[in-house]
């Protein structure tokens, strides 16, 4: 059932308004904090207010503006979009609180929080995009809004990282635009409301080229190898930004774009006939293993996290590329599972850096005694990535392996297994170093400020909840299932 409801347009717009107010608040710390938090909170409330309806199968739509006939900005909150919006707006609130604590003494906070709030707006815009053009618009805007955050320190290194970031993501954006125009030319529409709008009539070669075009475009932000180069470089940004890039916004809109391309532009049936998804799955499989292997050799904590992100994102791509309902479920829920676990880790990295100034893993000896809660949260996230039952990551691995077997591609079940081992190989040493190596400094308990510790612990709690009950309040598994049913026509 479709209902016209302005809330799908208000959700991105309200953060836009708050961003403007943050800029207007200039140097008034109180008002800046107030508007930053209200940007996150207001959006969360609006998104959540649509959740009961969405769970009943209501799809909210709103056509904002039509530039020319058939080409315009329109919003639509279907199950997949709702799922992504719920995840990102929940995490955004946590990240905003954390950022306020983390950025306490940094210069240029007005610019930072202004663009930070803009990013909320654009991510939800991506989630609720009704057509490829709207998706492209917010996808590109997100690139532009994250750039000032990446170069926040204004050091030569940061500027260089910013350039790399832009070079990759803007090229990706160009591919997305080209793909969108091409889709419109072939299908006469760009809507994402159908389970596939293209047909075999367009010809095998054209469709393959278009698929490559769109996947390459979205694949840049989803960091599919070899398009991942920007991600480790962008680590120079302040930690809340890294969390934002890696867990919530940037990489996830890439993965989300891949899902939209596969499920709503091409459709499962067409792709099965076309056979291109085998290649994508292979690429994702290679990325999962290769990125994990590289991660083992990183001593810088944030760089290790970055390569872990690259590996984890390809779970989502692999799940989508397998074209089986169970794997699709895994792909969608992994948006949430990866997000909560990875953001926990980044919060931990930031807290350690702010409290002790340490960034390299070999310096972490005994840090578990100094920051027990923080490192406890880290342990939860690490166990989730390894895929231990009761933790969120297990759910993904379970469904993804089942999906691989369902589509007769058992090799990917082995990839899952291998990835678990590799994850153990690079997370467990950190836990060992933190808790079991003797402290080199005096082991007084000295935790991060509550604005940083609080969000860390909450996210870790979510990781546990997601693993234990599957259906956490506010993180509805049912939405993922509804999306899968729609896509596979079940």
């Amino acid at each position, binding site marked *: 059932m479709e209902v016209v409801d302005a809330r799908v347009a208000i959700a991105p717009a309200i953060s836009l308004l708050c961003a403007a107010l943050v800029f207007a608040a200039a140097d008034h710390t109180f008002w800046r904090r107030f508007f930053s938090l209200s940007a996150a909170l207001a959006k969360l409330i609006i998104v959540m207010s649509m959740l009961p309806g969405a769970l009943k199968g209501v799809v909210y739509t709103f056509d904002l*503006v*039509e*530039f*020319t*006939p058939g*080409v315009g*900005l329109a919003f639509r909150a279907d199950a997949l979009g709702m799922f992504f919006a719920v995840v990102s707006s929940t995490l955004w609130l946590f990240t905003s609180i954390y950022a306020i604590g983390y950025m306490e003494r940094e210069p240029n906070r007005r*610019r930072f929080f202004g663009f930070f709030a803009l990013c909320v707006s654009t991510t939800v815009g991506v989630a609720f995009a009704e057509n490829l*053009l709207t998706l*492209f*618009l917010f996808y*590109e*805007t997100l690139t*532009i809004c994250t*750039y*000032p955050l990446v*170069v926040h320190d*204004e050091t030569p290194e940061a*500027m260089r990282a910013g350039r790399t970031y*832009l070079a990759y993501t*803007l*090229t990706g954006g*160009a*591919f997305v*635009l*080209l793909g969108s*125009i*091409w889709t*419109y*030319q072939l299908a006469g529409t760009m809507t994402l409301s159908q389970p596939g709008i293209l047909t075999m009539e367009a010809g095998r070669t054209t469709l393959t080229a278009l698929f490559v075009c769109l996947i390459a475009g979205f694949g840049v932000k989803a960091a599919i190898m070899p398009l991942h180069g920007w991600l480790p470089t962008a680590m120079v940004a302040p930690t809340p930004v890294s969390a934002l890039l890696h867990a919530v916004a940037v990489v996830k809109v890439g993965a989300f774009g891949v899902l939209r391309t596969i499920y709503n532009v091409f459709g499962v049936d067409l792709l099965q006939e076309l056979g291109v998804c085998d290649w994508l799955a292979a690429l994702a499989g290679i990325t999962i293993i290769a990125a994990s292997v590289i991660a083992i050799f990183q001593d810088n904590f944030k760089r290790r996290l970055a390569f872990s992100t690259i590996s984890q994102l390809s779970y989502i791509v692999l799940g989508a590329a397998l074209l089986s309902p169970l794997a699709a479920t895994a792909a969608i829920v992994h948006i949430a599972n990866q997000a909560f676990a990875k953001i926990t880790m980044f919060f931990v990295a930031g807290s350690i850096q702010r409290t002790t100034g340490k960034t390299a893993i070999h310096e972490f000896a005994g840090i578990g005694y100094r920051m027990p809660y923080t490192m406890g949260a880290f342990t939860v996230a690490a166990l989730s990535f390894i895929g231990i039952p009761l933790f969120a990551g297990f759910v993904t691995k379970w469904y993804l392996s089942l999906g691989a077997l369902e589509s007769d591609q058992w090799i990917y079940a082995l990839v899952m297994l291998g990835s678990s081992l590799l994850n153990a190989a690079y997370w467990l040493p950190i836990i060992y170093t933190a808790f079991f190596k003797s402290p080199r400094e005096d082991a007084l308990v000295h935790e991060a400020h509550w604005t940083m510790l609080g969000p860390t612990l909450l996210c870790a709690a979510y990781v546990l909840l997601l693993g234990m009950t599957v259906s956490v309040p506010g993180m509805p598994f049912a939405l993922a299932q509804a999306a899968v049913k729609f896509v596979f026509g079940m």
Partner: protein
Amino acid sequence: MTSWSPLLALFLVIPLVGAVLTPVVSDSSGRRSWGWAVFIMSVTSAMSVSLIVRVLEEGPFSYVIGGWVAPYGIELRFDEFSASVAIVCLLGLLAIVFSRHYAPQALTPERIPYYYTLLLLNLTGMLGFIVTGDLFNLYVFTEILSLSAYALVAISGEKTAEMAAFKYLVMGAVSSLSILFGVGLLYALTGSLNMADVTSRLAGTAHAPLVMAFAALTLGFMVKAALFPLHIWLPDAHAIAPSPVSAVLSGLVVKIGILGMLRVYQMAYGSGAIDLSGLNLTLTWLGAISIVMGAFFAVFQDDIKMMLAYSTISNIGYIVMGLGLASSYSLIGASVHVFNHALIKATLFLGAGALIHQTGQRTLTGLAGIGRSMPFTTAAISIGAISIVGIPPTAGFLCKWYIALGALEAGEPIFAVALVFGALLIFIYYIRMVNAFYFRKPQDAGAPAVHEAPLTMLVPVLILAALCLIMGILGRLPLSFIEPAVTRLLTPLGGG
């Protein structure tokens, strides 16, 4: 003809007479000549609005000078393409308003009244070019606007300005000659100078001279439009001229080449006497090369106006590529961009002018960190930059969308690729610019504090920046003019 038609003649007479009278009326006072020019341009703008309202209600209409009927007398004709007078009037008015504080700083006092004379003459030339229905008058108006443009480039009297104007003059004179040659050939072939009449007589004329005539016209107009490789005059001329003049030159004067091309196409398609596929292919490729070369050179500029000048070459490339692809989508895209690029480039040039006026700096290095002291101007420039790259929902987006769609429609995906990646290259140097404004530390902290530009500068820049956004969101508005015009263009002898 209804009683309204004489308005069309007055529409040209008023700015022409106004231009000539400027030095007399102003009595060599810069302030008074500014007021006079604003008054004349406001009246002209008001008239343009009523003309456009009429073309929307009734369709194309004509005014016959002296009552001599079409093929014999001189005809002024107002059709949908002529709606571009609105943009000429708007930009002209804003550029003149902007000049109030700019001109006294850039020019010696005794030249100021003549500056407004030349500017008004230039605008009259363009208005006349757009509404004339007669080939010879097309040439005459081309000369009016070109000659005044050379003088405007040189008006500051600096050595570099004179050199740039001279280069512009040489290229411009050759192109005018080429246009005149083409017009002469068409007259010899058909015995008529009225464009509609020529169109109907073209069928059955000798082929070789006809090709030569169209080639000469195309060549002439392409020099005026600064299409690669005929662009060499543009960067210096546009960068060195006073900023309001740069805005008019870059936003409007180069478009005259494009509008001239559209007139040529109207005749060629209308008569069906000549096969344009070879020309179209050439234009498409030259357009694509222009996009890339313009962007490529722009990336290496440090002078902000030089950068904008090269960006114009890229954008002309987009428009010409759209013309060359010759599908209905791409023609719509090209025509829309004639309007929208004018708005965008005027925003950028006037914005840059405000920065230069306030700081005395024109390089990115010199303008580092300016975003802190001139937030409104730099915000407007940023909007212009986003528009010119073509990010929705700004004005630059529609053109790219339609031309790319046209390329795919014509079965030439390679040009869609060139277009999208050309836009990417363009993005790079606008990012350099925005970077310098916002993310770089000012050069020397000891310099006197810079203030935001005066209102007569700021208001035009902000109006234009707002229009960059509005025209993107209300993209349907220009389409209501352009779609019927393009349909008519592509239908042989369908002109009403």
